[in-house]
Structure formats: structure tokens, C-alpha cells
């Protein structure tokens, strides 16, 4: 439900455009799309074709996950907004990109991918030599531990944390009211997860190993939202978790993702 509502009624981003619209529709294919380069540019966007296209919106946590990976890797890409309010994500042609009708989808040449965590893994593998390392180099053991913490984010952290973000932030955007009892129950579960993170981060500088990996990156969008709410206390009250949050949110690539929301 979270994913559906998050992706459902967000307005198209208020990006100032020279062209009439960036809205995703078949007739747009012949028109140039805005290209977002990895260098933050105060100058107007250039109009060129990049081989990587992201279909999504900067407010969506799943889209942000993918954008973070692209910026970490210093890759050029086009962000093609999807008109969620009009339900574009639930219709063709978007369904041909993701039959589950959820943003984001990514195209790299003639490869089409969806599911943000599969996309980021692809970016980390395909462009492993570019930009920042997103997987710890090394033996099978380190790779295996990275998979453990990737699964922890997806299976233990996100189901709880994204519901809190939904209650505290996204419900308000859709004219619904936060349910304080639900928030309390969810936070009761989140603290148990964060206690485990605290213990882990006392032994390891980042979640999977001593370098920043996708396992850390995948947390950024939801943590970003929660740190703007009263739930931030749960993170700030745990010293190692607090330090980790500060480190990962201070990364230049992440700042670029957040900037996109402001445009």
C-alpha cells in the first residue's frame, strides 16, 4: 500500500522548463528531454540524449535510491518525470517499462529494468570502475555480508520505516491524517531494528563492512524523510547510528539528489 500511495498522487516536479512539458507520453519521444548531468549546474539544462533514462519523480523514495547510485557513479542520465497524478504509471506506455506500475524504471540503451534495488545493483556492477565504489571490493565473504545487509534494509528496515514516513509525511500530502497509534506501534518496532544497527555499527564502520556500500545507500531516501520529522529522535539517540546517518547523508552525491527535489 505504501508504494502505491507514495507513487500515486505526487504532483509532477516543479522544474522550470524551457519546453512545454516533460510529461511522459508517447508523443514526447520526438521531443528532446532534459538531461541531468552529474555536475550540479545552475545553468539551464542542456538538451542531449543520454543512454541512461530514469522514469520517476524526485520525491519518490524508490526513485531517489536510483538517483543516488547514478550520482555516486558520476553517470549522465535523463530524468523523465512520470505524471503520477494522471495515473500515467498505471497505464501504457509506462506498464511496458514496469508491469507492476511503480516508479522508477530505468533504461540503459535497450535494457529496461525496474525494482530500485535491482537497478542500483546493476549500476554498481555495470559501472563498477566508475565513480565511487558501491560494493566492497574483495572476497566472497565480504560480498556475502553485503547481501545480508542489503536484505536487512529491504526486509527489516524498509517495511517499518517507510510506513512511518507514509504516516508522518505522505498522508498529509494526500489530505489524510497521521494515525498517532500507528506511528507509536511502528516506532516501537523500528527501535528494535535500530538497536541492532547500533550494535552492528559498533563493530563496523558501515553496515556491510568498513566502506560505504549499496547496503547503506538504500537507506538514504527513507532516512532523509524521517530526519525531517519527530522520528529523528530515534536515530539521534543512538550514537553510532547517529554518526552513520550524518556520514551517509553528508555524501555529495546524496546532496545532489536532495537538490533535485528543490528544483
Amino acid at each position, binding site marked *: 500500500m505504501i*508504494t502505491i500511495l507514495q507513487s500515486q498522487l505526487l504532483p509532477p516536479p516543479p522544474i522550470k522548463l524551457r519546453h512545454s512539458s516533460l510529461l511522459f507520453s508517447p508523443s514526447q519521444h520526438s521531443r528532446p528531454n532534459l538531461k541531468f548531468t552529474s555536475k550540479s549546474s545552475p545553468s539551464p539544462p542542456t538538451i542531449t540524449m543520454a543512454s541512461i533514462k530514469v522514469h520517476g519523480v524526485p520525491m519518490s523514495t524508490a526513485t531517489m535510491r536510483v538517483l543516488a547510485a547514478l550520482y555516486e557513479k558520476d553517470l549522465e542520465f535523463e530524468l523523465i518525470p512520470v505524471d503520477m497524478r494522471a495515473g500515467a504509471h498505471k497505464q501504457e506506455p509506462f506498464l511496458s517499462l514496469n*508491469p*507492476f506500475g511503480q516508479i522508477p524504471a530505468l533504461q540503459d540503451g535497450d*535494457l529496461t*529494468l*525496474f*525494482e530500485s*534495488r*535491482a*537497478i542500483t*545493483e*546493476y549500476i554498481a*556492477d*555495470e559501472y563498477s570502475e566508475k565513480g565511487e565504489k558501491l560494493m566492497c571490493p574483495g572476497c*566472497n*565473504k565480504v*560480498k*556475502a*555480508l553485503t*547481501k*545480508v545487509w*542489503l*536484505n*536487512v534494509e*529491504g*526486509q*527489516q528496515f524498509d*517495511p517499518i520505516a517507510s510506513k512511518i514516513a507514509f504516516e508522518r509525511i505522505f498522508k498529509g500530502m494526500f489530505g489524510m491524517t497521521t494515525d498517532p497509534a500507528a506511528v507509536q506501534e511502528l516506532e516501537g518496532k523500528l527501535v528494535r*531494528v535500530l538497536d*541492532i544497527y547500533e*550494535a*552492528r555499527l559498533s563493530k563496523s564502520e558501515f553496515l556491510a563492512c568498513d566502506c560505504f556500500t549499496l547496503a547503506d545507500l538504500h537507506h538514504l531516501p527513507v532516512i532523509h524523510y524521517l530526519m525531517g520529522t519527530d522520528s529523528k529522535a530515534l536515530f539521534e539517540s543512538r550514537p553510532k547510528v547517529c554518526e552513520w546517518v550524518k556520514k551517509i547523508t553528508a555524501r555529495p552525491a546524496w546532496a545532489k539528489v536532495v537538490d533535485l527535489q528543490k528544483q
Partner: protein
Amino acid sequence: MAGIKVFGHPASAPTMRVLLTLHEKNLDFEFVHVDLMGGEHKKEAFLARNPFGQVPAFEDGDLKLFESRAITQYIAHRYEGQGTNLLPADSKNIAHYAIMAIGMQVEAHQFEPVAAKLVSEQVFKLKKGLTTDQAVVAEEEAKLDKVLDVYEARLKEFKYLAGDTFTLTDLHHIPTVKYLLGTPTKKLFTERPRVNEWVAEITKRPASQKILQ
């Protein structure tokens, strides 16, 4: 002596995911039964293996892992040359691997959350002497219908979810699918021709026959 140990419970779907993988690979291992009824999984010795207090936990020599899908991926890579190949046929092809990775995310985020609720309502609750909430079943079956429509379309193009060969993507579904086949939800699978064939294929595999009750 086997360096591989699985700490789990035979009725646990995540445990079964790991056991299926080991059997597909013809690997020797020791199964250590965790007494869930007695709360063993919430006690210190087990928490040292999985701080989230869930089965399974896993050991291969001095490597200790948890989260079933991380464990299965480790096994599939580490023992790539052995037994059934659970990765795409050309595993070094990053695009092919990404397609399999999509399928694994879909199983974890689109299929399993819905399917697990249906198993909980129709199987586990009954074992605890509670009653099935039919409203929840109806709601979750409506969601599962949508997911299986996508699977049906996918399986019309390919023999398996990630392509023409059996991979981890298919394997991860097997335990929960097997549970659902023992409930009225079975009809959602049998009424879709390609899904029905796929279910028959993946549950009749020798490894599946070994561990599915």
C-alpha cells in the same frame, strides 16, 4: 565433516529456501533444529547468529550469514560450478543477472508480503487454534491476482521467471507456493495456464520433493 550448517525449522519457508538451494547444489550440510515453540530463536545463543531472531541462520566454515535470500545467493555464487546452476546461464552477463535480480526483488516485495499473509491466515492461524479472517483473505487474494497476472504474461514469453532456465528467482517462491497449494488460494495458480505449469515444474523438482512435506 560438512562445513555448512543451517540453523532453522523445517516448516519455515525461509529455512526451506536455503535447504532447497543446498539440495539443488548436492551439498552436504548439517541441519540444526531451532526450537521455535520454546522461543530458542529469541535467546542469546541464536541472536548471536541472527540479531533479528529469525530462522534460518547459516554457517560455512567461519562465514556466518542470515537472511534467506542472502544465504541462497551466497551458495549459488560460491558453489557455482556444482549441481544445478541457479544463476542465469551466462552469469557474467550483467544485464542477464539484473533481470534475475528484478525477479528476486519482485518475489521479496510484490509476491511474498501478500502470499505470506495468505499462508498466515489459512495455515498458521489454524495451527494455533485461531480462525481465518476471510476479509483479509479476500483483500490479499485480490492483490495476489494482480501479481499473478504479471507472472502469467511473463511466463508466456519465458519458461521461467528470469528466462529460459530455472534460477534463484523461481526457487525463492517454492516454499510459500507449496503452502498456498494446500489452501483455497490454490485456484489463483491453477486458473492461469502458464503459472499452473510453472508451479508444477518447480514443485516436482527432486530437490523440492525432498523438502516439501
